[in-house]
């Protein structure tokens, strides 16, 4: 996958302590959700799709986390510039006291949109 900075904190270094605590929270929260969806999909069969979708997402994320994919554990990740089709330099930071700037720069995304239309 490409084309995404992935957030302002993406790729920042974390240590083993945070990784272990994070993994506990991650599995705990998802596990609780899985149990909830499984129980709820008995009286509401329409939720089976949601349950199965959650299972797919959870398993994919868990595999990536266990493989340390895109996680900068103890500085092991070489942080590279993001690969997005526009330059953030083109976006000016303004003050809330200024008149609002509202125009979204269409040109920034022409490539992706043309590709999608194609």
């Amino acid at each position, binding site marked *: 996958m*490409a084309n995404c900075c992935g957030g302002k904190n993406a790729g920042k270094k974390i240590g083993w302590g945070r990784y272990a605590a994070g993994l506990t929270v991650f599995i705990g*929260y998802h596990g609780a959700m899985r149990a909830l969806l499984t129980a709820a999909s008995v009286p509401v069969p329409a939720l089976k799709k949601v349950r199965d979708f959650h299972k797919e997402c959870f398993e994919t994320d868990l595999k*990536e986390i266990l493989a340390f994919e895109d996680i900068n554990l103890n500085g092991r990740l070489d942080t590279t510039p993001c690969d997005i089709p526009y330059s953030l330099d083109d976006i000016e930071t*303004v003050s809330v006291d200024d*008149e609002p700037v509202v125009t979204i720069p269409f040109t920034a*995304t022409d490539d992706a949109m043309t590709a*999608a239309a194609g």
Partner: protein
Amino acid sequence: MLKTQHSDVLTESEPPSELMGPGRYPRLKSKEITLMFSGGIDSTASAIKMSDHYDRVHLVTYKNGYGHYHFDRTTKRVEELNDKLGNRFRYTLISTKSYFDQILVNNVLRDYKKYRSGFIWFMGCKMAMHMRSAIYCLENGVRFMTDGSNMDTEEMVEQSLMSLSMIQHFYEDLTVEFGTPVYDVKRSDSKNLIRELNLNMGIEVLDRHLCIQPTCLAGELYYMPYLLFNKRVKHDEYDVARFIKEKSEVARAIVNEYFAQKGVDLDELLQDRKQQLEEAGPRNQYQEAS
């Protein structure tokens, strides 16, 4: 707050000013704006800014029906804003569950196989919200639409420039003018704006303000690897664009059906709006409306 039973509107702070019917279309209101509102930092800052430029700000909040709760927080925020800024805000809480089902949930497994990423849940949810916002603007004669998208939260797929641009095209087809007033405003400035009005800032944890807006369980789960491990959120721009394009067509069909059920000819309604827009003339939506 009024309780409405007969439609997808769950709560509204006041009844609509004019009711639309076959051949009866609302007058275009260029000094009013609709804002997709949660009560969080960005949408509250947008609401405050918009109240400087518009006579009336329509705050719309959506409930998707899937682990989406604590809407009382939004209601409290609206009350705070009306108290501080003089009853300029009309609030409506709308259920988007049936639209979200049609756009995504009914085919979520098929779509997951196709796009291979959980972003489809959020983008699908957001498209249902934007679609219903466009309907809101058409029903209430509101010319402008906005939200609190901000570049500081660019990890959220629905707030990327590409997604916003495609959404803007969707609105444009329905004669609604969409923009994002706080996109490049620093989050710290938005916070200061809210603090100056002495509004509730919630519980501050790191950069986040908890308990001031509804909770979205799916959102918490999806962005958890980013929050816990600083793991990059991966969205392929091409896939996101393809998804939005596909779902825009579904959303447009829902809009057609919505008005058909009310006996309103959508083409005629849009034609009427276009005529009114021509009469009103082009304008910079925020600057000239003030």
